[in-house]
Protein backbone atom coordinates (compact mmCIF):
# COMPACT_ATOMS: atom_id res chain seq x y z
CA UNK A 1 0.00 0.00 0.00
CA UNK A 2 2.66 2.50 1.10
CA UNK A 3 6.20 2.10 -0.01
CA UNK A 4 9.11 4.40 0.68
CA UNK A 5 12.25 3.53 -1.18
CA UNK A 6 15.74 4.76 -0.43
CA UNK A 7 14.68 8.15 0.87
CA UNK A 8 17.26 10.51 2.34
CA UNK A 9 17.11 13.86 4.02
CA UNK A 10 19.89 15.89 5.50
CA UNK A 11 19.86 19.17 7.35
CA UNK A 12 22.99 21.20 6.69
CA UNK A 13 25.30 18.22 6.27
CA UNK A 14 23.72 16.17 9.03
CA UNK A 15 21.99 13.13 7.53
CA UNK A 16 18.72 12.73 9.45
CA UNK A 17 17.50 9.91 7.25
CA UNK A 18 19.68 8.08 4.76
CA UNK A 19 18.52 5.58 2.16
CA UNK A 20 15.66 4.33 4.32
CA UNK A 21 13.05 2.06 2.79
CA UNK A 22 9.91 0.61 4.22
CA UNK A 23 6.74 -1.12 3.04
CA UNK A 24 3.37 -1.03 4.67
CA UNK A 25 0.99 -3.73 3.45
CA UNK A 26 -2.74 -3.02 3.44
CA UNK A 27 -4.73 -3.92 6.56
CA UNK A 28 -1.68 -4.37 8.80
CA UNK A 29 -0.20 -2.54 11.75
CA UNK A 30 3.43 -1.77 11.09
CA UNK A 31 5.63 -0.16 13.71
CA UNK A 32 8.74 1.93 13.46
CA UNK A 33 11.04 1.92 16.47
CA UNK A 34 14.49 3.20 17.25
CA UNK A 35 16.42 5.18 19.84
CA UNK A 36 15.78 8.88 20.37
CA UNK A 37 17.05 10.98 17.49
CA UNK A 38 17.06 8.06 15.07
CA UNK A 39 15.02 10.02 12.52
CA UNK A 40 11.63 8.38 12.97
CA UNK A 41 9.63 11.59 13.08
CA UNK A 42 11.64 12.98 10.17
CA UNK A 43 10.74 9.88 8.17
CA UNK A 44 7.06 10.50 8.98
CA UNK A 45 7.39 14.10 7.87
CA UNK A 46 8.96 12.94 4.61
CA UNK A 47 6.12 10.51 3.91
CA UNK A 48 3.34 12.95 4.82
CA UNK A 49 4.73 15.85 2.80
CA UNK A 50 5.89 18.15 5.61
CA UNK A 51 9.44 17.72 4.36
CA UNK A 52 10.68 17.00 0.86
CA UNK A 53 13.15 14.11 0.55
CA UNK A 54 16.53 14.94 -1.03
CA UNK A 55 16.52 11.62 -2.85
CA UNK A 56 14.25 8.60 -3.06
CA UNK A 57 10.53 8.24 -3.61
CA UNK A 58 7.31 7.54 -1.77
CA UNK A 59 4.51 5.68 -3.50
CA UNK A 60 0.99 5.19 -2.21
CA UNK A 61 -1.33 2.72 -3.94
CA UNK A 62 1.23 2.59 -6.77
CA UNK A 63 1.12 6.34 -7.27
CA UNK A 64 4.13 8.55 -6.72
CA UNK A 65 3.36 11.08 -3.98
CA UNK A 66 6.91 12.27 -3.33
CA UNK A 67 7.10 15.96 -2.47
CA UNK A 68 3.37 16.66 -2.60
CA UNK A 69 2.01 19.14 -0.07
CA UNK A 70 0.58 17.68 3.17
CA UNK A 71 -3.05 18.59 2.46
CA UNK A 72 -2.92 16.82 -0.91
CA UNK A 73 -1.45 13.71 0.68
CA UNK A 74 -4.16 13.83 3.33
CA UNK A 75 -6.87 14.03 0.68
CA UNK A 76 -5.43 10.92 -0.93
CA UNK A 77 -5.90 9.04 2.31
CA UNK A 78 -2.73 9.35 4.37
CA UNK A 79 -3.10 11.24 7.61
CA UNK A 80 -0.51 11.80 10.32
CA UNK A 81 -0.72 12.69 14.00
CA UNK A 82 1.86 14.75 15.83
CA UNK A 83 4.17 13.53 18.57
CA UNK A 84 3.71 16.86 20.32
CA UNK A 85 -0.07 17.05 20.16
CA UNK A 86 -1.44 20.05 18.28
CA UNK A 87 -5.07 20.54 19.32
CA UNK A 88 -7.00 23.62 18.17
CA UNK A 89 -7.12 24.85 21.77
CA UNK A 90 -9.68 27.59 21.16
CA UNK A 91 -12.26 25.10 19.87
CA UNK A 92 -14.41 22.44 21.47
CA UNK A 93 -13.69 18.75 21.02
CA UNK A 94 -16.60 18.52 18.57
CA UNK A 95 -15.31 21.43 16.49
CA UNK A 96 -11.79 20.00 16.54
CA UNK A 97 -12.91 16.69 15.12
CA UNK A 98 -15.22 18.40 12.61
CA UNK A 99 -12.21 20.15 11.07
CA UNK A 100 -11.03 16.66 10.15
CA UNK A 101 -14.40 15.49 8.84
CA UNK A 102 -14.70 18.58 6.63
CA UNK A 103 -11.90 17.14 4.50
CA UNK A 104 -14.45 14.89 2.85
CA UNK A 105 -17.73 16.50 3.90
CA UNK A 106 -18.70 19.97 2.71
CA UNK A 107 -21.84 20.49 4.79
CA UNK A 108 -21.35 21.85 8.29
CA UNK A 109 -24.15 19.87 9.94
CA UNK A 110 -22.99 16.59 8.41
CA UNK A 111 -19.40 17.25 9.41
CA UNK A 112 -20.52 17.85 13.01
CA UNK A 113 -22.54 14.62 12.99
CA UNK A 114 -19.56 12.70 11.68
CA UNK A 115 -17.48 14.24 14.48
CA UNK A 116 -19.85 12.74 17.04
CA UNK A 117 -19.55 9.33 15.39
CA UNK A 118 -15.77 9.44 15.46
CA UNK A 119 -15.74 10.69 19.05
CA UNK A 120 -17.74 7.65 20.09
CA UNK A 121 -15.22 5.40 18.36
CA UNK A 122 -12.32 6.75 20.41
CA UNK A 123 -14.33 7.06 23.63
CA UNK A 124 -14.72 10.84 23.73
CA UNK A 125 -18.48 11.04 23.40
CA UNK A 126 -18.85 12.61 26.84
CA UNK A 127 -16.29 15.33 26.14
CA UNK A 128 -17.76 16.72 22.91
CA UNK A 129 -18.56 20.20 24.20
CA UNK A 130 -15.44 20.64 26.31
CA UNK A 131 -12.85 23.10 25.06
CA UNK A 132 -9.81 21.21 23.82
CA UNK A 133 -7.64 23.23 26.20
CA UNK A 134 -9.35 21.48 29.16
CA UNK A 135 -8.26 17.98 28.12
CA UNK A 136 -5.66 15.90 29.93
CA UNK A 137 -2.67 14.53 28.03
CA UNK A 138 -4.51 11.26 27.47
CA UNK A 139 -7.52 13.21 26.22
CA UNK A 140 -5.38 15.25 23.85
CA UNK A 141 -3.77 12.11 22.42
CA UNK A 142 -7.23 10.70 21.79
CA UNK A 143 -8.36 13.94 20.20
CA UNK A 144 -5.33 13.85 17.91
CA UNK A 145 -6.36 10.35 16.90
CA UNK A 146 -10.03 11.28 16.46
CA UNK A 147 -9.31 14.33 14.32
CA UNK A 148 -7.06 12.32 12.03
CA UNK A 149 -9.58 9.50 11.85
CA UNK A 150 -12.33 11.95 10.86
CA UNK A 151 -10.50 12.84 7.64
CA UNK A 152 -11.48 9.41 6.32
CA UNK A 153 -7.99 7.99 5.79
CA UNK A 154 -6.97 4.57 4.49
CA UNK A 155 -3.54 4.83 6.12
CA UNK A 156 -2.75 6.49 9.44
CA UNK A 157 0.73 7.50 10.59
CA UNK A 158 0.62 7.61 14.39
CA UNK A 159 3.55 9.35 16.05
CA UNK A 160 3.88 8.18 19.67
CA UNK A 161 0.20 8.26 20.58
CA UNK A 162 1.01 6.40 23.82
CA UNK A 163 3.92 8.47 25.08
CA UNK A 164 3.31 9.96 28.51
CA UNK A 165 0.30 7.80 29.31
CA UNK A 166 -0.06 5.51 32.33
CA UNK A 167 -0.58 1.76 31.98
CA UNK A 168 -4.38 1.89 31.98
CA UNK A 169 -4.45 4.68 29.42
CA UNK A 170 -1.99 2.79 27.20
CA UNK A 171 -4.25 -0.23 27.39
CA UNK A 172 -7.27 1.83 26.37
CA UNK A 173 -5.54 3.45 23.43
CA UNK A 174 -4.19 0.07 22.23
CA UNK A 175 -7.81 -1.04 22.07
CA UNK A 176 -8.72 2.03 20.04
CA UNK A 177 -5.85 1.39 17.62
CA UNK A 178 -6.99 -2.22 17.18
CA UNK A 179 -10.55 -1.02 16.56
CA UNK A 180 -9.28 1.35 13.89
CA UNK A 181 -7.31 -1.45 12.23
CA UNK A 182 -10.38 -3.70 12.32
CA UNK A 183 -12.41 -1.04 10.55
CA UNK A 184 -10.06 -1.52 7.59
CA UNK A 185 -7.55 1.27 8.11
CA UNK A 186 -3.86 0.45 7.75
CA UNK A 187 -1.56 1.79 10.45
CA UNK A 188 2.08 2.78 10.62
CA UNK A 189 3.13 3.82 14.10
CA UNK A 190 6.14 5.19 15.90
CA UNK A 191 6.24 3.92 19.45
CA UNK A 192 8.53 3.69 22.44
CA UNK A 193 6.19 1.67 24.60
CA UNK A 194 7.62 -1.78 23.76
CA UNK A 195 4.76 -3.69 25.31
CA UNK A 196 2.45 -1.95 22.82
CA UNK A 197 4.77 -2.50 19.88
CA UNK A 198 5.03 -6.22 20.61
CA UNK A 199 1.32 -6.77 21.08
CA UNK A 200 0.12 -4.56 18.25
CA UNK A 201 2.37 -4.81 15.27
CA UNK A 202 2.46 -7.35 12.50
CA UNK A 203 5.80 -6.04 11.33
CA UNK A 204 8.47 -3.83 12.89
CA UNK A 205 11.16 -1.67 11.37
CA UNK A 206 14.12 -0.39 13.36
CA UNK A 207 15.71 2.91 12.48
CA UNK A 208 19.05 3.96 13.93
CA UNK A 209 21.02 7.07 13.05
CA UNK A 210 18.86 7.54 9.99
CA UNK A 211 19.42 4.05 8.62
CA UNK A 212 17.02 1.14 8.57
CA UNK A 213 18.95 -1.56 10.43
CA UNK A 214 16.34 -4.29 10.77
CA UNK A 215 12.84 -5.29 9.78
CA UNK A 216 10.66 -8.29 10.50
CA UNK A 217 8.37 -9.85 13.08
CA UNK A 218 8.57 -7.84 16.34
CA UNK A 219 9.92 -10.76 18.43
CA UNK A 220 12.64 -11.63 15.93
CA UNK A 221 13.68 -8.03 15.45
CA UNK A 222 14.10 -7.50 19.19
CA UNK A 223 16.60 -10.35 19.30
CA UNK A 224 18.60 -9.02 16.39
CA UNK A 225 22.11 -8.18 17.72
CA UNK A 226 22.22 -4.98 15.66
CA UNK A 227 19.04 -3.77 17.33
CA UNK A 228 20.20 -4.62 20.82
CA UNK A 229 23.41 -2.69 20.19
CA UNK A 230 21.55 0.30 18.84
CA UNK A 231 19.62 0.54 22.08
CA UNK A 232 22.17 -0.59 24.65
CA UNK A 233 25.51 0.36 23.11
CA UNK A 234 28.41 -1.36 21.42
CA UNK A 235 29.17 -4.87 22.65
CA UNK A 236 25.87 -5.17 24.48
CA UNK A 237 24.64 -8.03 22.31
CA UNK A 238 27.69 -10.18 23.14
CA UNK A 239 27.44 -9.43 26.83
CA UNK A 240 23.78 -10.38 26.82
CA UNK A 241 24.43 -13.61 24.95
CA UNK A 242 27.15 -14.50 27.46
CA UNK A 243 24.85 -13.70 30.33
CA UNK A 244 22.11 -15.84 28.83
CA UNK A 245 24.54 -18.77 28.43
CA UNK A 246 25.63 -18.46 32.04
CA UNK A 247 22.11 -18.49 33.41
CA UNK A 248 21.18 -21.44 31.21
CA UNK A 249 24.22 -23.41 32.31
Amino acid at each position, binding site marked *: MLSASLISKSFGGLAAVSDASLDVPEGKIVSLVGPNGAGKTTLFALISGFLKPDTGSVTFNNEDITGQRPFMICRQGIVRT*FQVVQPFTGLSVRENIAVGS*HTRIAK*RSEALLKAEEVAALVGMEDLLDRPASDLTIAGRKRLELARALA*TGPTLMLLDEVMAGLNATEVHEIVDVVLKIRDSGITILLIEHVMQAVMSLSDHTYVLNEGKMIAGGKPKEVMRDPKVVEAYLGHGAAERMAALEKKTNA
Partner: protein
Amino acid sequence: MSTRSLFIIWGLLLLSFILMPLFITSNRWIGFLEMTFFVAVMGQSWNILGGYGGQYSFGHALFFGTAAYIQAIMQQKFGWSPWIAMWFAVAGTVLVASFVGYLSFRYGLKGSYFALITLAFAEAFHVLARSLDSITEGGRGIQLLLNQDPDKAISAFQFNFAGPFLSSYGFYYTILIAMVLVFAVTWLVEHSRFGAQLVAVRENEEAAEALGINTFRTKMGAILLSAAITSFAGIYYVQKYLFVEPGIAYGLSKSVEALFAPIIGGLGTVIGPLLGSFFIHGVGEITKDFIGHYVGDRPGVDLILFGVILLLVLAHMPRGLAGLLSDVWKRVAGGRNA
Protein backbone atom coordinates in the same frame (compact mmCIF):
# COMPACT_ATOMS: atom_id res chain seq x y z
CA MET B 1 -27.38 31.15 24.58
CA SER B 2 -29.84 29.26 22.42
CA THR B 3 -30.05 29.97 18.71
CA ARG B 4 -33.64 31.15 19.09
CA SER B 5 -32.92 33.80 21.70
CA LEU B 6 -29.95 34.93 19.63
CA PHE B 7 -32.18 35.41 16.60
CA ILE B 8 -34.69 37.35 18.71
CA ILE B 9 -31.97 39.68 19.98
CA TRP B 10 -30.60 40.25 16.48
CA GLY B 11 -34.15 40.89 15.19
CA LEU B 12 -34.95 43.43 17.90
CA LEU B 13 -31.64 45.18 17.33
CA LEU B 14 -32.28 45.39 13.59
CA LEU B 15 -35.86 46.60 14.10
CA SER B 16 -34.73 49.39 16.41
CA PHE B 17 -32.12 50.48 13.86
CA ILE B 18 -34.72 50.52 11.09
CA LEU B 19 -37.17 52.59 13.14
CA MET B 20 -34.56 54.89 14.64
CA PRO B 21 -34.97 57.83 12.19
CA LEU B 22 -38.71 57.96 12.94
CA PHE B 23 -38.05 58.83 16.56
CA ILE B 24 -34.65 60.49 16.54
CA THR B 25 -34.35 63.68 14.58
CA SER B 26 -31.04 64.82 15.97
CA ASN B 27 -28.56 65.01 13.13
CA ARG B 28 -25.73 64.36 15.49
CA TRP B 29 -27.22 61.06 16.70
CA ILE B 30 -27.97 59.84 13.16
CA GLY B 31 -24.46 60.83 12.10
CA PHE B 32 -23.12 58.94 15.10
CA LEU B 33 -25.00 55.81 14.06
CA GLU B 34 -23.88 56.15 10.44
CA MET B 35 -20.23 56.30 11.47
CA THR B 36 -20.76 53.43 13.89
CA PHE B 37 -22.23 51.21 11.16
CA PHE B 38 -19.51 52.28 8.75
CA VAL B 39 -16.75 51.29 11.16
CA ALA B 40 -18.64 48.09 11.99
CA VAL B 41 -18.45 47.16 8.29
CA MET B 42 -14.73 47.97 8.20
CA GLY B 43 -14.25 46.06 11.45
CA GLN B 44 -16.17 43.04 10.22
CA SER B 45 -14.03 42.85 7.10
CA TRP B 46 -10.93 42.95 9.30
CA ASN B 47 -12.54 40.39 11.63
CA ILE B 48 -12.93 37.83 8.83
CA LEU B 49 -9.21 37.94 8.07
CA GLY B 50 -7.88 38.71 11.55
CA GLY B 51 -10.50 37.43 13.98
CA TYR B 52 -11.45 34.21 12.21
CA GLY B 53 -8.29 33.69 10.18
CA GLY B 54 -5.69 34.95 12.67
CA GLN B 55 -3.94 37.09 10.03
CA TYR B 56 -3.59 40.51 11.68
CA SER B 57 -3.56 43.20 9.03
CA PHE B 58 -2.27 46.63 9.96
CA GLY B 59 -3.09 48.16 6.61
CA HIS B 60 -6.77 47.77 5.87
CA ALA B 61 -6.69 51.38 4.67
CA LEU B 62 -5.06 49.90 1.57
CA PHE B 63 -8.35 48.29 0.59
CA PHE B 64 -10.51 51.18 1.79
CA GLY B 65 -8.47 53.79 -0.03
CA THR B 66 -8.06 51.86 -3.27
CA ALA B 67 -11.81 51.40 -3.56
CA ALA B 68 -12.47 55.03 -2.64
CA TYR B 69 -10.03 56.32 -5.25
CA ILE B 70 -11.21 54.05 -8.06
CA GLN B 71 -14.78 55.04 -7.31
CA ALA B 72 -14.01 58.77 -7.14
CA ILE B 73 -11.89 58.77 -10.31
CA MET B 74 -14.42 56.88 -12.40
CA GLN B 75 -17.34 58.90 -11.13
CA GLN B 76 -15.77 62.34 -11.27
CA LYS B 77 -13.22 62.14 -14.07
CA PHE B 78 -14.92 59.65 -16.40
CA GLY B 79 -18.46 60.62 -15.42
CA TRP B 80 -19.52 57.03 -14.87
CA SER B 81 -22.61 56.09 -12.92
CA PRO B 82 -21.72 55.11 -9.34
CA TRP B 83 -23.68 51.90 -9.85
CA ILE B 84 -21.26 50.82 -12.58
CA ALA B 85 -18.11 52.34 -11.09
CA MET B 86 -18.57 50.47 -7.82
CA TRP B 87 -18.00 47.06 -9.40
CA PHE B 88 -14.71 48.30 -10.84
CA ALA B 89 -13.81 49.60 -7.39
CA VAL B 90 -14.54 46.19 -5.86
CA ALA B 91 -12.63 44.35 -8.60
CA GLY B 92 -9.64 46.68 -8.39
CA THR B 93 -9.45 46.31 -4.63
CA VAL B 94 -9.70 42.53 -4.82
CA LEU B 95 -6.91 42.56 -7.39
CA VAL B 96 -4.65 44.55 -5.04
CA ALA B 97 -5.58 42.19 -2.19
CA SER B 98 -4.74 39.13 -4.28
CA PHE B 99 -1.30 40.57 -4.98
CA VAL B 100 -0.58 41.36 -1.32
CA GLY B 101 -2.10 38.04 -0.21
CA TYR B 102 -0.14 35.99 -2.73
CA LEU B 103 3.09 37.68 -1.77
CA SER B 104 2.51 37.22 1.97
CA PHE B 105 1.01 33.75 2.10
CA ARG B 106 3.06 32.17 -0.67
CA TYR B 107 6.18 33.02 1.32
CA GLY B 108 4.62 32.10 4.64
CA LEU B 109 4.63 35.53 6.27
CA LYS B 110 2.85 35.35 9.61
CA GLY B 111 2.11 37.45 12.68
CA SER B 112 3.99 40.70 12.84
CA TYR B 113 5.56 40.12 9.40
CA PHE B 114 2.15 40.02 7.80
CA ALA B 115 1.10 43.10 9.79
CA LEU B 116 4.20 44.93 8.56
CA ILE B 117 3.76 44.04 4.90
CA THR B 118 0.15 45.25 4.91
CA LEU B 119 1.22 48.46 6.63
CA ALA B 120 4.01 48.91 4.08
CA PHE B 121 1.63 48.47 1.14
CA ALA B 122 -0.84 50.97 2.60
CA GLU B 123 1.97 53.48 3.02
CA ALA B 124 3.27 52.85 -0.50
CA PHE B 125 -0.19 53.54 -1.93
CA HIS B 126 -0.39 56.62 0.30
CA VAL B 127 2.75 57.97 -1.36
CA LEU B 128 1.50 56.99 -4.81
CA ALA B 129 -1.81 58.77 -4.27
CA ARG B 130 0.09 61.90 -3.27
CA SER B 131 2.50 61.82 -6.18
CA LEU B 132 0.41 60.63 -9.15
CA ASP B 133 -0.93 64.14 -9.50
CA SER B 134 -2.49 63.76 -12.94
CA ILE B 135 -4.69 60.86 -11.80
CA THR B 136 -5.37 61.51 -8.13
CA GLU B 137 -5.04 65.31 -7.95
CA GLY B 138 -2.24 64.70 -5.44
CA GLY B 139 -2.63 66.08 -1.94
CA ARG B 140 -5.57 68.28 -2.94
CA GLY B 141 -7.73 65.20 -3.29
CA ILE B 142 -10.73 64.61 -5.51
CA GLN B 143 -13.86 66.62 -4.87
CA LEU B 144 -17.03 65.13 -6.30
CA LEU B 145 -19.69 67.53 -7.51
CA LEU B 146 -22.92 67.74 -5.64
CA ASN B 147 -25.79 67.41 -8.05
CA GLN B 148 -28.77 69.65 -7.40
CA ASP B 149 -30.79 68.31 -10.33
CA PRO B 150 -33.11 65.59 -8.95
CA ASP B 151 -33.16 63.80 -12.33
CA LYS B 152 -29.41 63.32 -12.22
CA ALA B 153 -29.30 62.56 -8.53
CA ILE B 154 -29.31 58.80 -8.98
CA SER B 155 -26.33 58.93 -11.29
CA ALA B 156 -24.50 61.08 -8.73
CA PHE B 157 -25.79 58.97 -5.85
CA GLN B 158 -27.75 61.41 -3.80
CA PHE B 159 -31.12 60.89 -2.27
CA ASN B 160 -32.72 64.23 -3.03
CA PHE B 161 -34.77 62.58 -5.77
CA ALA B 162 -36.58 60.48 -3.18
CA GLY B 163 -38.34 63.05 -1.08
CA PRO B 164 -37.39 64.83 2.13
CA PHE B 165 -37.27 61.76 4.40
CA LEU B 166 -34.82 59.77 2.30
CA SER B 167 -32.74 62.80 1.39
CA SER B 168 -32.07 63.10 5.13
CA TYR B 169 -31.81 59.44 5.98
CA GLY B 170 -30.83 57.78 2.67
CA PHE B 171 -27.23 57.28 3.66
CA TYR B 172 -28.27 56.00 7.06
CA TYR B 173 -30.31 53.24 5.43
CA THR B 174 -27.64 52.55 2.81
CA ILE B 175 -24.97 51.82 5.41
CA LEU B 176 -27.49 49.93 7.57
CA ILE B 177 -28.34 47.62 4.66
CA ALA B 178 -24.65 47.19 3.82
CA MET B 179 -23.92 46.31 7.43
CA VAL B 180 -26.76 43.78 7.62
CA LEU B 181 -25.54 42.09 4.43
CA VAL B 182 -21.94 42.01 5.60
CA PHE B 183 -22.93 40.59 8.98
CA ALA B 184 -25.10 37.96 7.28
CA VAL B 185 -22.17 36.96 5.09
CA THR B 186 -19.98 36.66 8.18
CA TRP B 187 -22.57 34.50 9.89
CA LEU B 188 -22.68 32.25 6.83
CA VAL B 189 -18.90 32.02 6.79
CA GLU B 190 -18.89 31.10 10.47
CA HIS B 191 -21.28 28.22 9.79
CA SER B 192 -19.55 26.86 6.72
CA ARG B 193 -16.69 24.58 5.87
CA PHE B 194 -14.63 27.57 4.77
CA GLY B 195 -15.14 29.20 8.16
CA ALA B 196 -14.24 26.06 10.09
CA GLN B 197 -11.09 25.64 8.03
CA LEU B 198 -10.20 29.31 8.44
CA VAL B 199 -10.47 29.02 12.23
CA ALA B 200 -8.35 25.85 12.09
CA VAL B 201 -5.66 27.79 10.22
CA ARG B 202 -5.79 30.48 12.92
CA GLU B 203 -5.49 27.94 15.71
CA ASN B 204 -2.68 25.82 14.27
CA GLU B 205 -1.57 26.02 10.69
CA GLU B 206 0.55 22.88 10.69
CA ALA B 207 -2.23 20.73 12.14
CA ALA B 208 -4.70 22.25 9.67
CA GLU B 209 -2.49 21.31 6.73
CA ALA B 210 -2.09 17.77 8.10
CA LEU B 211 -5.87 17.44 8.20
CA GLY B 212 -6.24 18.13 4.50
CA ILE B 213 -6.73 21.91 4.52
CA ASN B 214 -5.13 23.91 1.73
CA THR B 215 -3.96 26.63 4.09
CA PHE B 216 -2.71 28.91 1.31
CA ARG B 217 -6.04 28.89 -0.49
CA THR B 218 -7.98 29.34 2.75
CA LYS B 219 -5.98 32.44 3.68
CA MET B 220 -6.29 33.81 0.15
CA GLY B 221 -10.06 33.34 0.32
CA ALA B 222 -10.16 35.27 3.58
CA ILE B 223 -8.11 38.23 2.38
CA LEU B 224 -10.09 38.51 -0.88
CA LEU B 225 -13.43 38.44 0.95
CA SER B 226 -12.13 40.90 3.50
CA ALA B 227 -10.91 43.30 0.80
CA ALA B 228 -14.19 43.07 -1.11
CA ILE B 229 -16.13 44.03 2.03
CA THR B 230 -13.76 46.88 2.86
CA SER B 231 -14.18 48.19 -0.67
CA PHE B 232 -17.90 48.71 -0.01
CA ALA B 233 -16.96 50.90 2.93
CA GLY B 234 -14.69 52.91 0.62
CA ILE B 235 -17.42 53.28 -1.99
CA TYR B 236 -19.90 54.40 0.67
CA TYR B 237 -17.48 56.95 2.06
CA VAL B 238 -17.03 58.62 -1.33
CA GLN B 239 -20.80 58.85 -1.89
CA LYS B 240 -21.42 60.26 1.55
CA TYR B 241 -18.62 62.81 1.82
CA LEU B 242 -18.03 63.46 -1.91
CA PHE B 243 -14.34 63.80 -1.20
CA VAL B 244 -11.21 61.70 -0.99
CA GLU B 245 -7.59 62.63 -0.39
CA PRO B 246 -4.46 60.55 0.37
CA GLY B 247 -4.52 61.00 4.15
CA ILE B 248 -8.17 59.99 4.48
CA ALA B 249 -7.85 57.11 2.03
CA TYR B 250 -4.58 55.51 3.04
CA GLY B 251 -3.83 57.07 6.42
CA LEU B 252 -3.28 55.02 9.53
CA SER B 253 -6.56 55.97 11.16
CA LYS B 254 -8.75 53.82 8.89
CA SER B 255 -6.46 50.82 9.44
CA VAL B 256 -6.58 51.37 13.19
CA GLU B 257 -10.36 51.79 13.29
CA ALA B 258 -10.78 48.57 11.33
CA LEU B 259 -8.82 46.56 13.88
CA PHE B 260 -9.97 48.40 17.02
CA ALA B 261 -13.62 47.55 16.60
CA PRO B 262 -13.28 43.74 16.45
CA ILE B 263 -10.48 43.54 19.02
CA ILE B 264 -12.44 45.54 21.60
CA GLY B 265 -15.77 44.00 20.60
CA GLY B 266 -14.65 40.37 20.43
CA LEU B 267 -12.40 38.69 17.86
CA GLY B 268 -13.94 35.97 15.74
CA THR B 269 -17.52 36.77 16.73
CA VAL B 270 -20.22 38.17 14.44
CA ILE B 271 -21.44 40.80 16.93
CA GLY B 272 -17.95 41.87 18.03
CA PRO B 273 -17.23 44.58 15.42
CA LEU B 274 -20.60 46.26 16.06
CA LEU B 275 -20.12 46.28 19.84
CA GLY B 276 -16.58 47.55 19.44
CA SER B 277 -17.62 50.23 16.99
CA PHE B 278 -20.36 51.45 19.33
CA PHE B 279 -17.90 51.48 22.16
CA ILE B 280 -15.14 53.44 20.47
CA HIS B 281 -17.51 55.98 18.97
CA GLY B 282 -19.35 56.36 22.25
CA VAL B 283 -16.10 56.92 24.09
CA GLY B 284 -14.98 59.27 21.31
CA GLU B 285 -18.11 61.41 21.68
CA ILE B 286 -17.87 61.46 25.44
CA THR B 287 -14.22 62.50 25.40
CA LYS B 288 -15.02 65.22 22.90
CA ASP B 289 -17.76 66.55 25.17
CA PHE B 290 -16.24 66.14 28.62
CA ILE B 291 -12.49 66.15 28.23
CA GLY B 292 -12.80 68.75 25.49
CA HIS B 293 -14.77 70.84 27.94
CA TYR B 294 -11.83 70.96 30.36
CA VAL B 295 -8.74 70.92 28.16
CA GLY B 296 -10.17 72.53 25.06
CA ASP B 297 -10.32 71.02 21.60
CA ARG B 298 -7.04 69.13 21.47
CA PRO B 299 -6.94 66.60 18.67
CA GLY B 300 -5.44 63.31 19.78
CA VAL B 301 -6.86 63.23 23.30
CA ASP B 302 -9.37 60.57 22.29
CA LEU B 303 -6.57 58.57 20.62
CA ILE B 304 -4.62 58.46 23.88
CA LEU B 305 -7.72 57.22 25.64
CA PHE B 306 -8.29 54.56 22.93
CA GLY B 307 -4.73 53.36 23.40
CA VAL B 308 -5.23 52.94 27.12
CA ILE B 309 -8.55 51.15 26.61
CA LEU B 310 -7.02 48.83 24.01
CA LEU B 311 -4.24 47.87 26.41
CA LEU B 312 -6.73 47.18 29.19
CA VAL B 313 -8.94 45.10 26.92
CA LEU B 314 -6.01 43.06 25.61
CA ALA B 315 -4.72 42.44 29.12
CA HIS B 316 -7.98 41.68 30.92
CA MET B 317 -10.64 40.85 28.32
CA PRO B 318 -9.08 38.81 25.52
CA ARG B 319 -12.56 37.82 24.34
CA GLY B 320 -13.66 41.45 24.20
CA LEU B 321 -17.08 42.90 24.94
CA ALA B 322 -18.78 39.91 23.31
CA GLY B 323 -17.01 37.59 25.74
CA LEU B 324 -18.00 39.83 28.64
CA LEU B 325 -21.65 39.83 27.53
CA SER B 326 -21.75 36.07 27.13
CA ASP B 327 -20.27 35.60 30.62
CA VAL B 328 -22.87 37.94 32.09
CA TRP B 329 -25.62 36.14 30.18
CA LYS B 330 -24.42 32.78 31.47
CA ARG B 331 -24.42 34.06 35.03
CA VAL B 332 -27.93 35.52 34.70
CA ALA B 333 -29.35 32.47 32.92
CA GLY B 334 -27.52 30.13 35.29
CA GLY B 335 -28.88 31.98 38.33
CA ARG B 336 -32.40 31.80 36.95
CA ASN B 337 -32.23 28.06 36.27
CA ALA B 338 -30.71 27.26 39.66
